[in-house]
């Protein structure tokens, strides 16, 4: 058991070392001190303000990571999560502004709309794949572009508030806001500085992670899903219908994708409406996070936090004349490092386990049971 944990830690540890080494080389080559840079990054994230900023940022990333990871688990590449969430959230924002419902129901209704639209959008590549054999990578990439066009069209022609300077939907009424967790935190005696709010949808992200875990690792459906990803032929012979599995997985992945935009839309006082400034491309980050987190809910969570940490903590660098782009170098190196080191460690472990098994097997033959 202890050896298993050690094996589990070997890969992320070596990936981290790899990342730091690559970033150090990049910094050193560009004439900056790696030590100073890393110290600045570390100390900057010390403040409550930045910790909250990291947490807030990681919420949408995490859910995006889960959406992509679920597809990966059965060998499906849902690159379309980006289009799915953007189309979902723009329609949900417009629909939500027209609703008048009590608080909890209003939030729920908006979430349902976002999820339903995202699922419908995800259904297109799924059906194309099972009926016409269209590769989902190609179709989802193209549908992302289509989603961009549709949402821009809807926004500027139907959802737009005509009076406003910038293109945006009607603001959501207070009943649709997810309150920040500041009051909850206060129960433990912590007080955030002024204008620092911890996004309330953090709870939703944790719940999404728990649902992902139960669904993928503990349910019968999850077994079928994972079996299809590991060995589609074995899955088919075991009774899994490959077509049905593609459709179900794509729809569930789309459902998770539908939740990506909820944290900024409903939980961030900066928005509470959809506008041109609304974050895009979150689900592309989700692909990287699913890779780094090995499609596991805990791993993806840590990856989302690390990713956000890199983005938030490097903001301070430009004040010290260190290029802020180091953040992207670190993120890129991290993806490569994780992919490589997991494969290396996996192979080592395979040999070690096989050795153990073969030693056991070459022991004197046991009596054959009658």
């Amino acid at each position, binding site marked *: 058991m202890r050896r298993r944990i050690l094996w589990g830690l070997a890969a992320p540890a070596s990936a981290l070392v790899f990342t730091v080494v690559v970033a150090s080389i990049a910094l050193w080559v560009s004439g900056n001190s790696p030590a100073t840079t890393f110290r600045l990054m570390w100390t900057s994230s010390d403040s409550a303000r930045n910790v909250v900023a990291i947490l807030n940022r990681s919420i949408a990333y995490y859910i995006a990571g889960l959406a992509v990871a679920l597809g990966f688990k059965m060998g499906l590449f849902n690159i379309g999560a980006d289009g799915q969430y953007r189309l979902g959230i723009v329609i949900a924002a417009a629909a939500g502004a027209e609703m008048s419902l009590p608080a909890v129901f209003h939030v729920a209704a908006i979430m349902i709309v976002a999820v339903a639209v995202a699922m419908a959008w995800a259904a297109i590549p799924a059906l194309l794949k099972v009926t016409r054999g269209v590769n989902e990578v190609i179709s989802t990439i193209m549908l992302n572009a289509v989603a961009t066009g549709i949402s821009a069209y809807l926004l500027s022609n139907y959802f737009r508030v005509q009076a406003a300077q910038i293109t945006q939907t009607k603001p959501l009424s207070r009943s649709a806001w997810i309150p920040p967790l500041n009051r909850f935190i206060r129960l433990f005696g912590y007080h955030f500085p002024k204008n620092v709010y911890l996004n309330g949808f953090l709870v939703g992200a944790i719940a999404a992670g728990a649902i992902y875990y139960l669904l993928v690792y*503990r*349910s*019968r*459906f*999850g*077994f*079928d899903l*994972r*079996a299809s990803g*590991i*060995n589609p*032929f*074995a899955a*088919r*012979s*075991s*009774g*899994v*219908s490959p077509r049905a599995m593609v459709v179900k997985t794509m729809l569930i992945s789309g459902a998770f994708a539908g939740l990506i935009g909820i944290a900024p839309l409903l939980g961030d006082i900066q928005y509470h409406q959809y506008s041109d400034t609304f974050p895009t491309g979150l689900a592309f980050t989700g692909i990287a996070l699913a890779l780094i987190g090995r499609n596991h809910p805990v791993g993806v969570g840590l990856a989302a936090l690390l990713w956000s940490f890199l983005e938030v903590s490097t903001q301070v660098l430009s004040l010290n004349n260190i290029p802020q782009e180091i953040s992207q170098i670190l993120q890129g190196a991290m993806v490569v490092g994780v992919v490589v080191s997991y494969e290396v460690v996996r192979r080592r472990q*395979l*040999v070690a*386990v*096989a*050795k*153990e*098994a*073969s*030693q*056991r*097997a*070459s*022991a004197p*033959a*046991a009596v*054959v*049971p*009658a």
Partner: protein
Amino acid sequence: MTDSERAAGSERASGPSASDADDIAIELRGIVKRFPGVVANDDIELIVRRRHIHAIVGENGAGKSTLMKILYGSLKPDEGTIIVDGTQRSFNSPRDAIAAGIGMVFQHFMLADNLAVWENVVLGLPGRLDIGRSKARIEELSARYGLDVDPDALIADLGVGQRQRVEILKVLYRGARILILDEPTAVLVPQEVDELFDSLRELTREGVTVLFISHKLDEVLAVADEITVIRAGRTIAQVKPADVTARQLAELMVGSELPTPATSEKTVTDVVELDLANVTVAGAGRNALESVSIRVRRGEVVGIAGVEGNGQTELIGVVLGTVPTTGGSVVINGHDMTHVGTRARRERGLGYIPEDRQYDGLLLTQPLWENEILGHQTQSPNVRGPWIDRRGARKRTAQIVHDYDVRTPSIDVEAHALSGGNQQKFIVGREMLAEPQLLLAAHPTRGIDVGAQAAVWDHIKEARRRGLGVLLVSADLEELIGLSDTLLVILRGEIVARLDPAKVTPTDLGSYMTGARAGTAA
């Protein structure tokens, strides 16, 4: 034999003085190797004389394949020395082995069907290609070694035996003087085996050394000049065929008595468990299955004999529900399942031992207990409602490991860490403990050792007594004849003969399988 060839042959024979050291083609000393999932080679000692057919026998999993891979350069030994033609060698790749004159003929042919023989022979060779000269060389080699291969023939038009000779030719063309053949008779019917043996004898007469891996003792005794027995990764004995009987050889291999698959009492009932009626499956060109009708009754084992690739895979798929039919009906346990998916069939008590365990029988990267669930995802003890019952699955897995003698450190080990034989035992145990009503068994004892083979046969016989119906597809003719109550021969997608296993010999069966004989012999 032409005069020039005879001259070439005698030249070799009277070459540098035939002292004892010169007479040895391969010498292995103290070879040790641990290889993922396969029994270790532990202190292998081997001396192969030149111009001999040297057989290596051992149970499956004894370490024969590992040894051959070491000789062929695709594996490096952890310890020990390899001496080829008096020179110590270290192979980093098969290329090095070929340079040293060692060539390997694999059990599964690696030929491009849509190319001619000569094209297959030169495929992958470096340097410029001189078509005329290559063809001439192929003809010359073919004539000298009596291989009877036409360089212009299309591979697709050749039979299994001819294809094998093309593989041998490929290796000779690359300059090999030492041939390794990995279970070459596994894909052949008895008549083709005789032809192969004639070719091998011709090769040794012409100065080639043959290393012949097999676990079929009769064949080994018939063809080999010398035999090395391997058990649990060690060389147990090196004997001459004249000095041993098949029985003694078997005892050397196993260290215990040889089991037989023979079934004693009849348990066949009138209740039909599986009813295939006029099943047709489309294929490329002709139909893969043509109006096949098979009935399996409770307590009956129906054996399907046939040369590989004559529709067995499609037949298995039709019963399992993974291959769509274009005609006919599939009735399982009285329910028409022609258009019903695999899961529903498995829930009706269909057990499945796949042809290729790694292809569709296991999740190699998952622990054993998760593999136990595979195929039984909707059945107790693996699930409770929509949730996986981990405790139930683990308990059942432990039972399989115990009852079926699966050698594994624990049930948390990933499936790929087990040797092939242990994976097979695990799969058989998984299917049998689920208490199927109908078992679809393809090569149920492929790759497992003689002792475990007997145990598997016992388990199948025991279940048959309790009313299990079995559709048995196998390449092991002894197994088919021994276990079956009814024996059907499949050829080019059609059932061409119905035989009584009590009265048929493997040679007769071979004639039916190749189409040399047809009809019904009851």
